[in-house]
């Protein structure tokens, strides 16, 4: 109902909706009566009521919010076009009370048909108020303030996270503009931090540079004038004629190096001359010692030879004595030969020549040894023989048993064959008695078995006994074999040892005889005798004992050889020292003490001169270095001062960066604070309306009050929280987790209508409620209808309400009376006007 006297509304109301090949509709026009505020859509489910709202939503926004979350699925099938219609364009045309209109057509696509289509005019340019253009998104805002579908509002109340709900509310309240600067502020903060880090790096580099420069500076100030005067004095120039210090330093370094070499040479010469002087007397002693050593070496060499000769004499004497003993027993060798012959001829000797691998030979020779061994071997042979006999007996018996068994089997087979060939004989030809062939055969088998069983039993027993004896004897034989074999092997070893011993003794005797013969021949050849050798021994011994180098009791060649080698080494060392000393004397021409004195004085003078030069050079070096360091320090001080100035400038920039960073934080906090304050303020206003609606819809017996608040405890994001509470405020619940579907529906309608009635972003004055009263009881419906009636009485809002419930439809039609226009959905996509 339009209040009388008002000016024509500036807001836009729907004046007509046309659809073509859209969802269930072929071609349909909904011409809206401008004099009525309520449009009631009634019909069974599935006839197109929701599609009517789809047409409005898609026509205005190009989207259907409830399909936005399923991108893949919605592209697999047709969504927008009427799947039962003939080919043709699909489109929606919306006309508004102020003469505005738009037509949106489905755009052909290879994948499904869900898309934004093509629209002839952008509705956001006139549906959104100019000052809100950049603050709200048409599709998002439309679905929160103009189109109430169960899915969306329930999702907003029950499923949406508090933080997302807060963001949606902020956007809807036009407060996103306060947050629009945040990305820019964040980027400024990031850039500022980068700059600050860059400045800090530069500052750090400069501070390190200062530290390096300071460490390269001299530790103390110097008197430059005095130093320059001193340097000029050393260089023997006037102060103002001092050459370039770098040049002086370079020159003095070269000169200093050369001087160091000369100084080292002079010091070496002085050391050598001093050495010659110190060893002048000792040198004579060394020469004397060399002479003595030479004598000692020669004497020890002589004693070595004498000891060797003495040993020869004593060997000859020894051999001669052995030979004499051999001569005293001339039959020794002959007896040994005889003994060996006898041994070889003996069984032991023969055994030694036997091959242990040849058992027959070993047994034969074992028998020849006689005694216990022969007896054992004989027993073994008997045992072998008896074992062979027993084995033959057993084989014979087995053959006999086999033959008997074969005979038995043949007889039975013969009987079987006979019976098989004569089965027609049922009577005995002799006695005419009845014959049962199988019985006869069984009796025959039994008789053969009974006749032969005793034979088999006795012989089998005998065979078992024989085999037991064979086994016993085999074990005995094996034991005796091992014993005899061991005895023979031991005998064999002993025999070989005896033979070897005899042969060795024979060889020794023969060698002795040969050596004695050789010595005798040698002595004969020399026409001498052993007495001469004895004399020679005495003479050599006396000679050794008389030597000054003789050591009591030591008469071996090796002792004096060792002493000779030690003395020789001492001699060589001493000779080397003397040669070296003489070379120094020759080099420095120090043939006499006088020359030595003169040369010593000259060398010392040269060394002193060089040291003086070195001291002066060092002084020049030191002064030059100090003056150059001072020069360097002056420059460094200036550089450090510059660096410090640069650091001060950098500190200012760093400070500026920190301030800008703080500013960014402060401004971001301000934006959050302002948004929070504004949201709270607006929520308070919107909340009053929502609360009013909620109370009138009569939702909950005890939790009859609603509260909306912003929870800012999370540093990252604020939360938009719903709470329901009792009149005292002591019991508080989150409706999302407490309310039934009907109560949630009431809450959703309250929130939607509260926001819809107070929203300011849009000029559109039409509200669309798709089946808003599902789950409600009669009292809720009554209240809802009365609320709508009071709203349309006081405002110019245009409501589109759908229901499938006939009782509710009739109720609303009566309640809305002449302020309602009815579209009756009579079939799939079929609509009639009332």
């Amino acid at each position, binding site marked *: 109902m339009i*209040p009388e006297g008002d000016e024509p509304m500036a807001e836009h109301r729907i004046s007509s909706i046309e659809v073509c090949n859209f969802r269930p509709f072929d071609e349909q026009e909904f011409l809206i009566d401008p004099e009525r505020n309520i449009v009631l859509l009634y019909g069974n489910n599935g006839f197109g009521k929701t599609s009517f709202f789809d047409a409005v939503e898609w026509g205005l926004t190009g989207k259907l919010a409830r399909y936005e979350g399923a991108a893949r699925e919605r592209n697999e099938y047709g969504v927008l076009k009427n799947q039962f219609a003939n080919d043709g364009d699909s489109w929606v045309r919306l006309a508004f009370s102020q003469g505005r209109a738009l037509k949106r057509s489905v755009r052909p696509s290879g994948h499904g048909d869900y898309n934004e289509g093509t629209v002839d005019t952008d509705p956001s340019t006139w549906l959104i108020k100019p*000052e*809100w253009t950049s*603050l709200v998104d048409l599709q998002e805002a439309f679905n929160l303030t103009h189109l109430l579908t169960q899915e969306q509002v329930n999702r907003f109340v029950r499923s949406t996270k508090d933080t997302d709900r807060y963001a949606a509310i902020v956007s809807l*309240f*036009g407060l996103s*503009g*306060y947050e*629009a*600067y945040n990305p*820019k*502020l964040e*980027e*400024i903060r990031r*850039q*500022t931090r980068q*700059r600050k880090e860059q400045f800090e790096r530069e500052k750090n580099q400069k501070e390190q540079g200062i530290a390096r420069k300071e460490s390269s500076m001299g530790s103390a100030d110097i008197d430059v004038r005095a130093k320059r005067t001193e340097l000029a004095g050393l260089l023997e120039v006037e102060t103002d004629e001092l050459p370039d210090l770098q040049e002086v330093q370079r020159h003095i370094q070269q000169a200093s190096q050369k001087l160091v070499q000369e100084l080292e040479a002079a010091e070496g010469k002085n050391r050598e001359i001093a050495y010659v002087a110190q060893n002048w007397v000792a040198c004579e002693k060394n020469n004397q010692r060399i002479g003595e050593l030479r004598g000692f070496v020669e004497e020890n060499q002589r004693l070595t030879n004498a000891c060797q000769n003495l040993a020869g004499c004593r060997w000859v004497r020894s051999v001669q004595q052995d030979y004499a003993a051999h001569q005293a027993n001339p039959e020794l060798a002959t007896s040994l030969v005889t003994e060996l012959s006898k041994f070889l001829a003996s069984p032991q000797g023969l055994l030694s020549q036997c091959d242990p691998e040849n058992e027959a030979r070993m047994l034969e020779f074992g028998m020849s040894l006689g005694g216990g061994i022969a007896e054992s071997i004989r027993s073994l042979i008997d045992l072998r023989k008896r074992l062979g006999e027993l084995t033959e007996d057993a084989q014979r018996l087995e053959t006999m048993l086999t033959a008997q068994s074969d005979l038995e089997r043949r007889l039975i087979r013969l009987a079987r064959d006979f019976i098989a060939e004569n089965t027609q004989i049922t009577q005995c030809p002799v006695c005419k008695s009845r014959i049962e062939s199988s019985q006869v055969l069984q009796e025959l088998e039994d008789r053969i078995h009974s006749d032969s069983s005793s034979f088999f039993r006795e012989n089998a027993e005998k065979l078992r006994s024989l085999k037991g004896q064979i086994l016993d004897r085999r074990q005995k034989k094996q034991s005796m074999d091992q014993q005899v074999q061991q005895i023979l092997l031991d005998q064999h070893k002993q025999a070989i040892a005896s033979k070897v011993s005899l042969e060795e003794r024979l060889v020794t005797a023969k060698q002795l005889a040969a050596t004695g013969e050789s010595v005798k021949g040698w002595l004969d050849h020399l026409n001498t005798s052993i007495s001469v050798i004895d004399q020679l021994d005495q003479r050599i011994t006396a000679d050794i004992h008389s030597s000054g180098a003789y050591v009591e009791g030591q008469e071996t060649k090796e002792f004096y050889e060792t002493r000779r080698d030690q003395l020789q080494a001492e001699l060589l060392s001493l000779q080397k020292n003397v040669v070296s000393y003489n070379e120094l004397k020759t080099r420095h021409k120090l043939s006499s003490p006088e020359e030595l004195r003169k040369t010593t004085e000259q060398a010392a003078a040269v060394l002193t001169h060089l040291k003086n030069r070195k001291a002066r050079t060092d002084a020049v070096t030191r002064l030059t270095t100090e003056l150059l360091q001072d020069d360097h320090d002056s420059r460094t001080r200036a550089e450090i001062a510059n660096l410090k100035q640069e650091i001060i400038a950098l500190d*200012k*920039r760093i*400070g*500026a*960066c920190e*301030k*800008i960073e*703080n*500013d*960014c934080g*402060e*401004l971001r906090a*301000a*934006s959050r604070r*302002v948004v929070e304050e504004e949201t709270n303020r*607006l929520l308070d*206003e919107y909340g009053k*309306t929502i609360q*009013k609606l909620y*109370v*009138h*819809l009569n939702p909950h*017996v*005890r939790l009859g009050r609603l509260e909306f608040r912003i929870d800012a405890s999370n540093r990252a994001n604020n939360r938009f929280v719903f709470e329901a509470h009792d009149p005292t405020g002591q019991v508080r619940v989150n409706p999302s987790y407490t309310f039934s579907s009907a109560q949630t529906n009431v809450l959703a309608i309250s929130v939607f209508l509260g926001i819809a*009635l*107070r929203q*300011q972003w849009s000029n559109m004055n039409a509200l669309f409620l798709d089946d808003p009263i599902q789950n409600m009881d*009669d*009292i809720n419906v*009554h*209240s809802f209808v*009365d*609320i709508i*009636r*009071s*709203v349309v*009485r*006081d*405002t110019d809002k245009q409501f589109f309400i759908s229901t499938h419930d006939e009782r509710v439809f009739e*109720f609303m039609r*009566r*309640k809305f*009376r002449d302020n309602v226009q009815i579209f009756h959905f009579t079939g799939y996509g079929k609509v009639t006007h009332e």
Partner: protein
Amino acid sequence: MSISRDSVVARLNEVGLREIAERLAQGVNTIQSRAGGLFITKNFQSLDELEKGWGDTQNLVAASVQTNLEKLGLEPDLTWDIYLILMCPDVIPDALRLEIEYDKFCCKKYVVQEIAGTPFEESVTEEVPLLCEWATLESADALHPGVNRTAILQRLTTGIDTALAHAMTSLPDFESATAESLVDRLIEEQAQ
């Protein structure tokens, strides 16, 4: 449209319903039609009286008014739009309120607690949806006083006296300039 108790009583007498008219004259205080509905109010003196008398009152409305709309010179369609408002000075228990308000006989009933000093209209408007006032919503432009750039920036930077805040409000190219160039500019200005 508004009718008084007296006119209804007179009308009932005219059509011969004198007994009902008499009871109506004694019990029901006001009969009022507003916003398309027919509102009948009845004041009870106590909770006990309400508990015992609300049934009789609705019976009286059903018998005297609802079935005699045409005789009373009212539109027959008003039979769907009769509201009975039961006033009581005591606190009304939830159970009794639910019993009365959810009762579907005759008409929609509301139980309203009379609070001393609160005007009748205000008390009733709070409870009855059809009597709600929504006209004030139309003047809600003041809810969103600042949605343009200038207003937003002023609000954002209020009380923040910093170079960055000044730059935001005074630099014409603040929004289009790159963060890099803004930072360089601010650093150099502040480092001076």
